[in-house]
């Protein structure tokens, strides 16, 4: 099975990698690029721990995507979320509000939350539930996760220039 060279931009860094057609994006990120922040969970599209963000910031299940399909495209993993030396507001608020227990699902939750907040900084309860339905935490439940997302949304709204409008 011939490998093919793909160009993949991850967190702003361009990589040329030889991949077999049956390698998933998850396998390439973890095994070829050593970006092990993205976790391998069910590998069947149910748990969401392998979530990365695509070109438009959308949530992508890297276990159910072929690496060859990502030739010439770019994506963001949890390693690329922080802003310089500072944590991204989503990461910071997960930390502050204890939205982490064992931490295994956290990269997937962060990337799923970021996919939402990148396009909607005033998410309703329903928006949050919909965006997070595909990313599952099995130890702590989602209450603190949702609080952290609402608080992160507040920070992002303030950053957009407006004052927090009290929706969150």
């Amino acid at each position, binding site marked *: 099975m011939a490998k093919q060279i793909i160009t993949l931009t991850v967190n702003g860094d361009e990589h040329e990698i030889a991949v077999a057609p049956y390698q*998933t994006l998850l396998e390439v990120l973890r095994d070829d690029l050593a970006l092990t922040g993205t976790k391998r969970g069910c*590998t069947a*599209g149910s748990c969401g721990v392998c979530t990365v963000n695509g070109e438009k910031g959308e949530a992508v299940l890297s276990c*159910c995507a*072929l690496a*060859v399909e990502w030739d010439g495209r770019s994506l963001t993993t949890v390693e690329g979320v922080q802003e310089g030396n500072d944590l991204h507001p989503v990461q910071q608020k997960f930390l502050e509000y204890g939205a982490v227990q064992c931490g295994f699902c956290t990269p997937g939750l962060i990337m799923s939350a970021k996919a939402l907040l990148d396009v909607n900084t005033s998410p309703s309860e329903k928006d949050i*539930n919909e965006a997070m*339905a*595909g990313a599952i935490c099995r130890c702590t439940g989602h209450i603190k996760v949702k609080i952290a997302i609402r608080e992160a949304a507040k920070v992002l709204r303030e950053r957009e220039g407006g004052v927090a409008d009290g929706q969150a």
Partner: protein
Amino acid sequence: MQLPEFEYLRPKTLAEGLAALAEHGPDATIMSGGSDLLINMKFRLDTPKYLVSFNAVQEMKAIEPQADGGLSLGAGCTLTQLAESEVLAEKYPALHQALFSVGSKHVRNAATLGGNICLDTRCWYTNQSENWRETRDGCFKTDNELCHVIKSADKCHAINSSDSAPVLIVLDASVTLASVNGTRDVPVSEFYNNDGVDHTVMRQGEILVGVTLPPPKGRSVYAKLAQRDGLDFASGTFAAGIVGSNEKPESVCLVMGSVGPEPKVLADSAAIIKASGLNEESIETAALAARASLGEVTNLFTPSGYKRRLVKALVKDALGELRDLQV
């Protein structure tokens, strides 16, 4: 789980893709979003020699309003793209709702309309890992003449879980199938077979390229019950459409999904509503008739008794919603 080995083909045009399908025949499998197929491949339910990805074929990704007031949808449209389509939400809210109910946001970002319509049938005994399956004999779906669900069955009873199929039938939609030999249009009501193995009328070398929706008529609703709203395949789905008033309907179409290998058109229940109008009494009678008309209910994923009660409740709730729906 890792994927089996395969050769990957990525045609840039539909013509190129059709030629690849014709060349490789039964050795080729069509992939679009891959959200279901790749998992089945990890389970070794599908081990194609050639995987033909249609994701680069731009001509299959358009949402085009038609001159007659209808809408044409490319099979390659992702479910997120369709969920964000204002024209779809406005003109065909029940279909919009059905597509939006598929999987999670993560899944909808990859999954396509064509993939949802052609979604392979599923069964508790088959959609498991290879090791799990090896603990018992194979079945119609794999390599044996046997059904683990209904021992006396002479065919596969795997469930058709397509969320879009029931509502597409209610909307009188048709699909366009293309091959190197040309294209043909098939009404969605005639697209499925009552057989879990060979569950659509698609022939070798054909691909579903698009869906045509006629101009919207009357009112329609969609209802779905799943163990978890966010992610699971449906335990039951129901689509209902009515043209005319509640008192004197001109036509009624009721379709149940996720109860067998094909969407089940509830003709008896529809006849009750058409004859007596849509009111509390007829809704109750129609819901009972829906339950009775299920016949052989396979105990897949949920016990059959539960499924019978579910069907009655789902039909009753959705018809109540339809009655109160303003055009």
